[in-house]
């Protein structure tokens, strides 16, 4: 990595990122590493001259060790994002970045609302995949005798794994109400408390949803999946507040050392995946009419103000609302299970939602560009909004927006808060720890049964539908989450409040 501002001299000879190059690497190699110029301790810039067609420079938020261990494809994909029409200021990626489709995972980009685009590749197939953190008034000593029973019950009551039929049966008209109402629909039906929605991004409902833009295939894939975790890196985890970094903020959020919390990571399931697939294919065709060319088919996009762009935005909002609803009914199930095991009501167990964040979504947000306030279409794919206190209301005007960073199931997670200084990344921070190796490599290094045993030795009781999936999610397959959190703190975009240690986990 250099600290001077130089770039590859002859780009036409060394143009990175050909579509069918197998560009994944374990470390950044030339010309990628050489192109990353240090801006500050945790901010690196790839200049606009790095690749033909870049409209803005790209910026990577990372410490030097994290940057060095990123794969070349991250830089390739990020600089491809910098080529998209209407992009404003920079294409960003966060410290947990790894290569994805179209955008890298950890990618953030904002587009002019009038002249820019919207791209499913900047949001991900799992629209509004997100994290939810719930607190309890229990402590480790209360949980230890009940842990196995509770995890077994949650494993039975919250469907996980391949396929997975949800526990909430809805008809077509109710599913339309879910697309429009998100978590609000659930709360109205008794799957939650009125206060829950004050603790969610967008209060658990994106208002621009248009069910007319949803295909029959998407509806059919999603209608039976309300209340399912899915698989891959999705999980439900019982955690203990292990280390408090910011006593004042933790106290305001009602969290103290040793307290038991529950974290959920899941999204819009097959419904969102189908919406993403439908519009990616539509945009591939419509780009011809709009005379847009992109450097990667997975970056297919439409002008935000075009009919196709607006149709996708309305469909994406439906999927985002389904994801809010999915996490809401799962919260309801969690409260029921705790209540059964501890023989107290969820209210008596203090099971309030800390917050619910989206990390795969596009939103219209006001930001200051060249001194003027402007509405932008902010894409976050594997990145979390991190509004500081000045953008929040109520309790969160004192703390900033809670940010939930899910780590590997072996190594723990973090609760952070957003900062007012995060404006320089469009108020965005990381979303997890990010993978360091492929799923295949992880499976060659360990067996799921061995992971389960080693987790048990560390005091983590895990239930899984798939031992192969468990091996893929082993802790060693992920980056050091503390280093990711440290990088985001150095960049000033979020600050750590609590480190959370897993003690029970359900994995699909």
């Amino acid at each position, binding site marked *: 990595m250099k600290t001077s501002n130089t770039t590859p001299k002859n780009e036409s000879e060394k143009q990175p990122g050909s579509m*069918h190059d197998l560009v994944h690497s374990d470390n950044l190699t030339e010309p990628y590493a050489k192109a990353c110029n240090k801006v500050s301790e945790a901010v690196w810039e790839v200049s606009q001259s790095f690749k033909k067609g870049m409209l803005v420079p790209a910026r990577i938020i990372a410490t030097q060790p994290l940057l060095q261990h990123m794969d070349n494809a991250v830089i390739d994909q990020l600089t491809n994002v910098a080529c998209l029409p209407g992009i404003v200021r920079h294409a960003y990626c966060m410290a947990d970045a790894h290569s994805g489709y179209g955008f890298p995972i950890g990618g953030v980009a904002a587009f002019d609302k009038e002249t820019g685009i919207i791209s499913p590749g900047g949001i991900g197939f799992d629209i509004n995949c997100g994290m939810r953190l719930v607190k309890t008034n229990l402590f480790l000593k209360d949980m230890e005798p009940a842990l196995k029973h509770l995890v077994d019950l949650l494993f039975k009551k919250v469907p996980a*794994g391949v*396929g997975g039929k949800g526990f909430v049966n809805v008809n077509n008209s109710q599913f339309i109400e879910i697309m429009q109402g998100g978590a609000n629909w659930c709360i109205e039906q008794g799957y939650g408390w009125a206060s829950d929605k004050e603790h969610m991004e967008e209060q658990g409902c994106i208002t621009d949803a248009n069910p007319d833009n949803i295909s029959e295939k998407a509806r059919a894939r999603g209608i039976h999946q309300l209340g399912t975790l899915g698989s891959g*890196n999705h999980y439900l985890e019982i955690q203990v507040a292990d280390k408090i970094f910011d006593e004042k903020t933790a106290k305001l959020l009602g969290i103290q050392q040793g307290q038991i919390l529950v974290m959920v990571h899941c999204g819009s399931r*097959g419904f969102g995946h189908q919406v993403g697939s439908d519009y990616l294919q539509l945009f591939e065709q419509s780009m011809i009419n709009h005379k847009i060319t992109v450097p990667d088919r997975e970056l297919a996009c439409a002008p935000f103000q075009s009919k196709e762009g607006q149709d996708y935005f309305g469909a994406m909002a439906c999927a985002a609302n389904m994801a809010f609803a999915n996490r809401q009914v799962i919260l309801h199930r969690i409260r029921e299970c705790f209540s059964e095991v501890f023989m107290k009501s969820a209210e008596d167990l203090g099971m309030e939602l800390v917050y619910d964040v989206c990390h795969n979504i596009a939103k219209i947000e006001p930001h200051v560009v060249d001194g003027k306030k402007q509405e932008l279409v902010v894409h976050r794919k594997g990145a979390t909004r991190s509004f500081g206190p000045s953008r929040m209301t109520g309790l969160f005007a004192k703390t900033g927006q809670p940010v939930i960073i899910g780590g590997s199931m072996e190594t723990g997670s973090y609760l952070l808060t957003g900062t007012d200084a995060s404006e320089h990344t469009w108020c965005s921070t990381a979303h997890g720890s990010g993978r360091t190796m492929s799923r*295949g490599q992880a499976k060659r290094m360990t067996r799921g049964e061995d992971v389960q045993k080693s987790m048990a030795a560390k005091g983590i009781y895990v239930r899984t539908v798939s031992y*192969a*999936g468990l091996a893929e999610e082993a802790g060693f397959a992920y980056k050091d989450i503390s280093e990711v959190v440290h990088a985001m703190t150095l960049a000033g975009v979020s600050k750590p409040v609590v480190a959370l240690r897993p003690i029970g986990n359900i994995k699909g």
Partner: protein
Amino acid sequence: MTYTFLEGITQADVAFEARGKNEEELIVQAGLALESVQVELSTVRPSINRTLTITASTLDNLLFKFLEELVFLKDTEQLVFCAITPSIRRDANTLILTVTLGGELINQTTQRLGTDIKAVTLHHYLVEKTSTGWKAIVVIDI
């Protein structure tokens, strides 16, 4: 002819290469590769049949649509498949795939399950003729 899982294309998801000596065999191998991500095929019995007809103008579109149908049937009918019997015919510029699938309902007790597939992606997607038949590279989002 068979399928193999590839390293070096994706860190978080799964990539595979399928090969067939003809177009039908490519469909079979790619379909089995996709299913094997979700379930160990030897633990699935072909007790339920489904027949699909899919049309496209090119083989790469035809294969893509077929793989998407497998994901769709997993989510909508909770079906995984271990047997794939295709036939492809041409009508003017259209390829018509008729495929019979044999499988069973997802069962966490009797099957050894893998990872849920979210989507078939266009990332590095490739179908090409080789000296020995056909080859496809497919990346699936999980």
